[in-house]
């Protein structure tokens, strides 16, 4: 097995004439918690299903744990946990924990029947289904805050204790900010960003610019993601940010420039909303 637990090269998927995933490149190192982000319909689930070999790629290929996704053998599959969207099967919990978890969903949960059943099948409630790679499609969707927190806790526990790799999609960016150390952002089938979370937050920046004379110059800068004006202040979001880009803003007449801290959620919105689509 190579250095990367998940790999994709030129991965492309068409549904009819519609390109849903577009020449996607992915290389996820072992031990990573990877947050796979994108708006609805961006191609997250399609990508995940191709990674797992549940869907044929139109072009390109992908591999999990060094094994081609379309030829995953049972021993390899046994080391991969998959949580499909909307299926609250928490595969890293042991059977007892899992029961505890499911019980809260059902008013009519019958513990005696459950105990009998696991006894009949010879299941050990302490037994854990250990996996090297866990792929989850929106695992916290629809969970109450307490259970959601449990899921996050399990992710942190797991990567420390079992040096697992976790790949998950989510719309809850505060969760992603908590547990992920690498993120990918997919938009219209294209993976636009794939880097450590800290790199993303350093390279996409909101800058407050004050123009004392009240004029609003055209801020056509390379990598411009968003401009919003309030009186004589502009909040400018730039991709590929570096310190010296503040000088570009000053050159356009800004009297004061200040880098603002922004949450991942705020940056994600700036990053994925086209300029023209804004008021």
């Amino acid at each position: 097995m190579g250095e990367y637990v998940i790999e994709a090269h030129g991965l492309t998927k068409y549904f009819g004439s519609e390109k849903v995933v577009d020449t996607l490149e992915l290389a996820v190192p072992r031990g990573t918690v990877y947050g796979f982000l994108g708006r609805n319909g961006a191609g997250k689930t399609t990508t995940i299903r191709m990674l797992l070999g549940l869907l044929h790629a139109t072009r390109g290929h992908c591999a999990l744990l060094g094994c081609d996704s379309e030829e995953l053998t049972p021993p390899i599959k046994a080391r991969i946990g998959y949580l499909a969207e909307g299926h609250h099967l928490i595969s890293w919990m042991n059977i007892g924990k899992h029961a505890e978890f499911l019980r809260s969903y059902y008013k009519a949960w019958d513990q005696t029947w459950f105990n009998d059943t696991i006894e009949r099948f010879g299941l050990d409630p302490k037994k854990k289904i250990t996996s090297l790679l866990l792929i989850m499609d929106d695992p916290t969707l629809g969970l109450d805050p307490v259970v959601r927190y449990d899921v996050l806790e399990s992710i942190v526990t797991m990567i420390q204790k079992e040096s697992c790799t976790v790949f998950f999609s989510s719309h809850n960016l505060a969760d992603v900010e908590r547990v992920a150390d690498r993120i990918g952002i997919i938009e219209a089938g294209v993976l636009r960003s794939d880097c450590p979370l800290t790199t993303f937050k350093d390279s996409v920046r909101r800058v407050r610019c004050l123009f004392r004379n009240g004029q609003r110059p055209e801020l056509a800068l390379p990598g411009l993601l968003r401009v919003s004006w309030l009186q004589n202040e502009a909040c400018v979001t730039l991709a590929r940010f570096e310190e010296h880009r503040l000088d570009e803003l000053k050159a356009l007449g800004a009297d004061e420039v200040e880098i603002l801290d922004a949450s991942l959620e705020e940056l994600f919105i700036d990053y994925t909303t086209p300029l023209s689509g804004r008021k």
Partner: protein
Amino acid sequence: MRFNINPSSAEPIYAQITRQAREAVARGTLRAGDQLPTVRELALELVINPNTIAAAYREMERIGLVHTRRGRGTFVAEIQSPASPGERRHHLQKHVDALLTEATLLGLSEEETLDAVRTVAGKYLLRETKKNG
């Protein structure tokens, strides 16, 4: 000490941890020589990626708040202050300005403002005044 992390905040998580550790050192909740939890322990406690915790510890080490002894753990360092009084004053100035801005806009008098500072100063490990200097 207890950290209180808000992952939705604009302040990065590693910065929240560093700031709260500085506050704890200033108030004496953390004393020189105290051992911080390991990265692993704190990651589990706060439900935060261990790399983020490690980044916070590196930052604390960089600013001289803690020191790490290999294989032993991370320990709170003695409070280090810049050598020259001028430098100390310079670092403090913008915080003084922020305080005075608030006080002015709240309509406080100078005496009331200084009084408010004196009232809480006892909670902090401010250095004792040296005679003749």
